[in-house]
């Protein structure tokens, strides 16, 4: 193999972490026989970059009042968040094996009362952005200099409540609030594939010019490739630098692919959730981890 000279060392490190997160996702769901696959995988790079390069957090002090906040509004992708939290040191990676089990701290949907590092309970879609707006407004009033990040899915923004907050956040001048849309192109079932659709079902927001919509509501917009480290990190830094300056919130429209990172889950609506067979797990392992070991040996 050739050396990976087209990527910086930083990106290789992030790539390694994201591969481990993806392996945790598919392996944990297979072990627990419950949980989602496609959404956690599409968000894995965005979450990895956020937790390892952007958020000002301390896993040993998860309730630090000055920490940056993150809300996974698409709460059914909990295993994606848990995998990254474990890698970041909030709890042991071994604990992931308790996901969705009785008496576990790792519930099917994030529970702020149970899991260290979870800033808001989510699960019923569409609510995380308003929770984040409340945190951002409180931060402004208390003159706290932290940033609040919220991630939603492209299917999730079909929920009407999202738009109540999209209208009101600019009125409160919440430039300390950033919305990340994981635009992975599929929802659980949705509509039959149409012209221009990337995957095997219709894109939830395929007919919507999201940039124009958010601009119209007074948001700053950034459109990126949600699987490109450079673009992700640049967008995060840009959004973060607007805090206290821009006067309006930022939306990062991250173009991703549902199920990204594993060949047989990518772009396939049926992998919204699913339990990988032994053979599928072997294949996922070879694509995510074995390849990583090969690359590692190469360097």
């Amino acid at each position, binding site marked *: 193999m050739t050396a990976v000279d087209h990527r910086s060392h930083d990106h290789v490190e992030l790539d390694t972490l994201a591969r481990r997160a993806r392996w945790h996702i598919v392996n944990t769901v297979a072990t627990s026989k419950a949980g989602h696959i496609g959404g956690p995988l599409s968000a894995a790079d965005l979450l990895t970059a956020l937790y390892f390069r952007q958020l000002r957090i301390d896993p040993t002090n998860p309730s630090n009042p000055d920490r940056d906040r993150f809300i996974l509004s698409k709460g059914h992708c909990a295993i994606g968040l848990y995998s990254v939290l474990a890698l970041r040191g909030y709890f042991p990676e071994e604990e992931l094996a308790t996901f969705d089990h009785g008496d576990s701290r790792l519930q099917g949907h994030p529970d702020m009362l149970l899991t260290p590092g979870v800033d808001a309970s989510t699960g019923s879609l569409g609510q995380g952005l308003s929770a984040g707006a409340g945190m951002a407004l409180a931060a402004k009033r*208390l003159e706290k200099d932290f940033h609040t990040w919220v991630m939603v899915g492209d299917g999730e923004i079909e929920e009407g409540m999202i738009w109540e907050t999209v209208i009101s956040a600019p009125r409160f001048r919440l430039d300390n609030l950033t919305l990340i849309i994981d635009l992975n192109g599929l929802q659980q079932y949705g509509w039959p594939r149409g012209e221009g659709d990337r995957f095997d079902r219709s894109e939830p927001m395929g007919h919507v010019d999201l940039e124009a919509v958010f601009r119209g509501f007074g948001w700053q917009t950034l459109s990126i490739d949600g699987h490109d480290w450079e673009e992700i990190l640049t967008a995060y830094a840009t959004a973060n630098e607007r805090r206290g300056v821009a006067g309006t919130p930022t939306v990062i429209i991250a173009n991703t692919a549902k199920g990204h990172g594993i060949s047989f889950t990518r772009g396939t609506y049926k992998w919204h959730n699913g339990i990988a067979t032994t053979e599928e797990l072997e294949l996922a392992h070879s694509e995510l981890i074995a390849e990583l070991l090969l690359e590692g040996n190469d360097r």
Partner: protein
Amino acid sequence: MKAQRVVWGETLAEIASTDPTLVVLDGDLATSTRADIVADKQPDAFIEVGIAEQNMVGMAFGMSTLGYRPWLSTFGVFLTHRAIDQIRMLVSQTKAPVRIAAAYSGLLNGSSGKTHQDIEDFAIMRAMPNMTVIAPADEYEAASVIRWAAEHPGPVYIRFARDAVTPVFPEDHVFEVAKPVAVRNGSDVTLISTGVQTSRTLDAANILAEAGIEAQVIHLATLKPLDDAALLSLIGNQENVVTVEDHSRIGGLGGLVAELLSERGGTRLTRIGLEDRWSESAPNEFLLEKYGLSAERVAESVKASLLITAR
């Protein structure tokens, strides 16, 4: 006589003058709920959120995670119905100190009719874990409840009435959470009431007295948590118990008392409340009369219940 909503606005403004954690989030109904009193007197404590109740609940939750103890200002119906999912996940399940001030609750809401009459709120909120559910009787109890709730560490639902009623309690009345209070003694029948209906139920007891029936009247300001033993002790060995409420007969105060009494037996319970149908827009007196909650109609129903031979 003062309406509970005026007391609410005035009391919150007073608390906010010394308590920086108190904020009121308004769903564009401040001139009705009287949150405008807070906006006038303590503008920093007032936050207009617009006609977006779901977002209002979400933002209140978010602010509560930073130490604020927010109050919500809108009609009860837009909280217990429109924003119930947000209350459920973000407030009840997280034990957030959000105060759900349900204005214009019950049947009487200024002739707005069935769209605005929240007659199912007790049934819904009572079933919600972690929720404290309170319906103050009058202006004085309302003031005391507001002060209690302002300090409570968890979620609180408070049912407020639009219009003033004849006070049940003296001005210095102090609300005690979970405690039922006997506001009238009598040995022929026990009437249990809640919210501003207690005032009309007391009037009904006085009408009954003219007919030689002495009714005990118990006011239950707190539907949850409830000091069960205290209520059972007040009821004593009374065999005839009647609940009276400005709420559906399903799942509210009558349901609560039925659940409690079913565990001990020996008591015949009559539930006076709204039948299982929607109401209409009309002046208060018309609605109370037609839907059986005026003092006269309650007295008639109690008499009728006493004519039925005990099992």
